[in-house]
């Protein structure tokens, strides 16, 4: 019996601590909003919210602990209601609850959620129960789609931002994908390296240099060299080719 009492006291103390922390955090948030509402930015506000949620999580952890169910079996009953100011009560509650009056007690000792919340919860429950399976599935699928779409957009933006930040910090790109592709195709398939029609087989006899393929168009065609490849240019190529490959 004593051990249970001690446990209860310990739990109650812990809960009290957590609630106090939560209270201070909310207080801080409200002060912040009131005083800095012109300079506050979204991330700071979110940070404060995060603190709040942290406290709430701690509180809920304690309530979920194994010892906590014992609390369910305990009930707080007001034994006496009065309109008089009770100094002790006021002191304990830091001046917020001066007396155990009729209108305060139902709100403070309430165990069910507050009326508005209860109503909305009921509405949702009703809606959920009337949905059939297929519609529910479809809605879930749509929801997943929307979420993943948003996720993609965010990741793309993040990549862009990271790239921009790299460039902004002065790191130059050291390779060019277009160049890579150009080089690989040139080496692999000869794109950009061919001269039009393939060369004519040179007629070589014996180890010495054979007779050059006669190209009477040598003179006027030298002017056509810078132009687009033509058959005349190819003939010249054939004639020249005998030379570089003789050992």
């Amino acid at each position, binding site marked *: 019996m004593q051990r249970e009492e001690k446990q209860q006291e310990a739990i109650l103390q812990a809960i009290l601590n957590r609630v106090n922390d939560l209270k201070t955090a909310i207080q801080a948030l409200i002060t912040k909003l009131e005083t800095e509402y012109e300079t506050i930015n979204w991330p700071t506000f979110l940070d404060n919210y995060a603190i709040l949620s942290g406290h709430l999580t701690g509180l809920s952890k304690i309530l979920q602990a194994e010892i906590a169910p014992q609390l369910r079996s305990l009930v707080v009953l007001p034994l006496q209601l009065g309109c008089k100011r009770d100094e002790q009560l006021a002191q304990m509650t830091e001046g917020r609850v001066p007396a155990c009056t009729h209108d305060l007690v139902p709100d403070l000792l309430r165990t069910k959620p507050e009326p508005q919340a209860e109503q909305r919860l009921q509405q949702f429950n009703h809606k959920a129960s009337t949905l059939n399976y297929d519609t529910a599935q479809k809605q879930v699928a749509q929801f997943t789609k929307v979420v993943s779409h948003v996720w993609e957009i965010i990741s793309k933006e993040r990549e862009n931002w990271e790239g921009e930040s790299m460039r902004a910090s002065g790191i130059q790109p050291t390779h060019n994908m277009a160049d890579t592709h150009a080089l*690989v195709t040139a080496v692999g398939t000869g794109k950009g390296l061919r001269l039009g029609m393939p060369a004519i087989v040179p007629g070589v006899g014996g180890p010495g240099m054979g007779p050059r393929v006669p190209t009477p168009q040598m003179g006027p065609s030298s002017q056509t060299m810078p132009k687009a490849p033509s058959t005349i240019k190819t003939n010249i190529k054939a004639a020249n080719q005998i030379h570089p490959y003789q050992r």
Partner: protein
Amino acid sequence: MSAANAAPITATDSLTQALKANIIPNQEYLLQGSVLDSAVEVLLHRLRGLCDNVDAGPETFDDQEVCFSLRDPNQQAAPLMLRVRKALDARDMPFQLRYIGQPDLGDKNRPTVVRSSLDIACSGMLIEFLNELGCRIEFEYSVKGYMFRKGRMKITVAKVFKISQSAMPPEPISQSYLVELSVLAPTGQDAIAEDMRAFADQLRPLVQLDKIDYKRLGHMPS
């Protein structure tokens, strides 16, 4: 005495034996990328730190490569592509005749391009031989750059030049150097591909070495 006087094994027999023992390097594992001219010095420094053969400075090379194709008049099979590479800075070295097969693209999980490749050193009148064989020249280019070695891996950083017909010097075809990481190995040694991928990661973000399917790119509008 009898063992020394035993009949010598024929060349075809020894080749068949070597094929069975899977010691003939007839596959090439390849990764390609490029680096801009402005960043090539940094890449060379990094490679000097990573690679083996750099005691007296990186090894340079200056080669000319000619690509031939042998077409089959009756069958509609794809023409056979052959490459001949000769060293312009070492005229006494033999020519290199190379047969490269189609790259094996089926597996997306393979870290590198794998294609069959036969490298044969030749001397004599190889170009005339190929011409008489019926091959036609498809295209040619020259490469000039540096060669590094790490274990079995060969890394080349080279500029590709288009050979012009007049006496003008060859002109580069892009403002980048082509970087290739390759290993010649017998079939089935896929572990080397993992090593190659690990090495390629060490060169990031300077160079992005990847498997590039040039056949697919060749059809894309440039």
